[in-house]
């Protein structure tokens, strides 16, 4: 059913990512799918990396570490933006096109009142792409 899974990764918040990563591993093995881990970074130094090059290295290392867990083929793709928080939705939609992913698995939070003003990224990506979107809640939100 699915051949290529795209997984948006926020290297600054690995704790919230854990449940989604388990689902990715299970789904990839079940469908024999390839996985692309997508990261978005700034041109300025951030808490994760002091340069975009360092960010790429870290995402690549992360992808390889996940490969050792689930054994499925992985790639890492980095997008750079001067305002990643504001451009997140657009960049993820671009990434779905660029990677040709037929399934996106991403971590998300519980619905909250602020969503009316600032919708969750998963909502936006689902609304603007034709791929299937699987949103995984973080356990501490339950």
């Amino acid at each position, binding site marked *: 059913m699915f051949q290529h899974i795209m997984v948006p990764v926020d290297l600054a918040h690995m704790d919230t990512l854990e449940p989604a990563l388990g689902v990715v591993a299970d789904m990839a093995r079940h469908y024999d799918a390839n996985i692309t881990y997508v990261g978005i970074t700034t041109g300025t*130094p*951030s*808490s994760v990396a002091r*340069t975009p090059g360092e960010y*790429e290295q870290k995402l690549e290392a992360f992808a390889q570490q996940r490969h050792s867990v689930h054994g499925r083929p992985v790639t890492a793709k980095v997008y750079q933006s001067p*305002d990643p928080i*504001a451009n997140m939705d657009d960049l993820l939609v671009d990434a779905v096109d660029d990677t040709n992913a037929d399934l996106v698995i991403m971590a998300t939070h519980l619905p909250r009142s602020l969503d009316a003003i600032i919708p969750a990224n998963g909502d936006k990506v689902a609304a603007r792409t034709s791929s299937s979107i699987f949103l995984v809640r973080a356990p501490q939100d339950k």
Partner: protein
Amino acid sequence: MANDDTHQAPPEDGGQGIPAPSGAANLIDTDYVIGQDNIKSSKFGIDFDLHGKVFTFSALVILIFVVLTLALPDQMGPLFAGAKGWLTNNLSWVFLLAANIFVILTVALIFTPLGKVRLGGADAKPDFSYAGWFAMLFAAGMGIGLMFYGVSEPMTHFGTSVNGGSWAPLAGAEGDTDGAIRLSMASTIYHWGLHPWGTYAVVALALALFSYNKGLPLTMRSIFYPVLGERIWGWPGHVIDILAVFATLFGLATSLGLGATQASAGLEYLFGIPNNNVTMVLLILGITIVALGSVVAGVDKGVQRLSQLNMTLAFLLLFFVIGVGPTLAIATGFFDNLLAYFQELPALSMPFGRDDSNFVGGWTAFYWAWWISWSPFVGMFIARVSRGRSVREFLIAVLLVPMLVSVLWMTAFGSTAIDQLLAGFEGARDAANELQLFEMLGQLPLSAVTSFVGIVLVLVFFITSSDSGSLVIDSITAGGKVDAPKPQRIFWALIEGFIAIALLLGGGLEALQAAVLTTGLPFALILLVGCYSIVKGLMSEPRG
């Protein structure tokens, strides 16, 4: 003193250490992790990620100043005004000398091999097109001032120059109309030309260099690394950042309040809308709501698009005035004024031995203190959008192009107004400052349309200042992160509007604006350190 422990970054081949930004660059070796002093939480469903000390103390200082100014208007007003007057009158030489150093350094860098260094590493690609980039530089830098002073300042200097005395630039040209025109345009351009943009360029270049090429966070403290080394992560750095937040927030809030006063006067003049507190509060709310939308949409889709809209409208208005005004006089005036500016530049920028003391203290030093106190905000925003530009390209766009635009703008608006005055129309000269532009436009065809465009421009320029300012404050109070959660930037945009409304209704806008001007002195010294850091930082960068 200076910290030399930089190292050449290894190639991007997965070797040990941190790879270069984009191509060769020279990262500073530090163990500090951006955000390590931050407090993170998502209480009540709202995420935040803030530098504990900078945010807390900035918020406290802001609160104390607002409460004091509102509670003790009779004491605080004269105190701030006195401090401002003392600074601009007694220490005018500091401002003049510092600004000269900024200009000399930034102009010289264009022509040295150091101009080849690229911000973000040798292979970095620009984030924005030339049009989008330049529009943002200009809108953040001085857009609004050109609207208000384009007519007002040349007219004022012309009046004082004809009469002579210490308020006239270089003691004026008494009784000599042509000489007075020449002096008034040269001195206006002096205040809006190389010096303000040189000031912005120093901050912007220092921040961009130490952030993109050296790997330090995008906050004011990073400029001090060559002098203070690792101590910038402690209180010396906190104080610099808190001062930057203070100057930016109050600079914006007071401008927003005073701008609303002026826009409201314009609306009454044009449409008869009552000029009262309700109109002004509605204007501030309107500006704040649009600015909120813009900060949420972000730099690319919010600030950039509004800035481009502004530039388009501003150029349409400019070309309209050139087209229907005294076209030939403006065309020849452009070159005459540019020449007069360069000829008078040495005399106008002389810090000592002046016989036009009121002009130096009341105009030049006042402007310099203002540009310098705005420089953390404008400089930081310029730095944020300038990754991928070479130093030479950066300085030409931040220094020379805006200078030429200022010359054209001041020539078109100032010459037209002076032309009207000499032809016998005294309406613009006698009007209040905020109405002089509209009086001048009133003498040209289609004045209802152009005045309306003028009001829209004023409002949108405020929005582009407000949204870029909120992004800057958000980044400083988040310890240099530009990817802090969205609610924070919303918070700052709202606070700015609320403070403007509180001060507008409670009084004290002018008092706090005076307080902002006094931050010009410490920032003048910070910027001089910035000059040293730029040279030191660029010397250690690969060129090409």
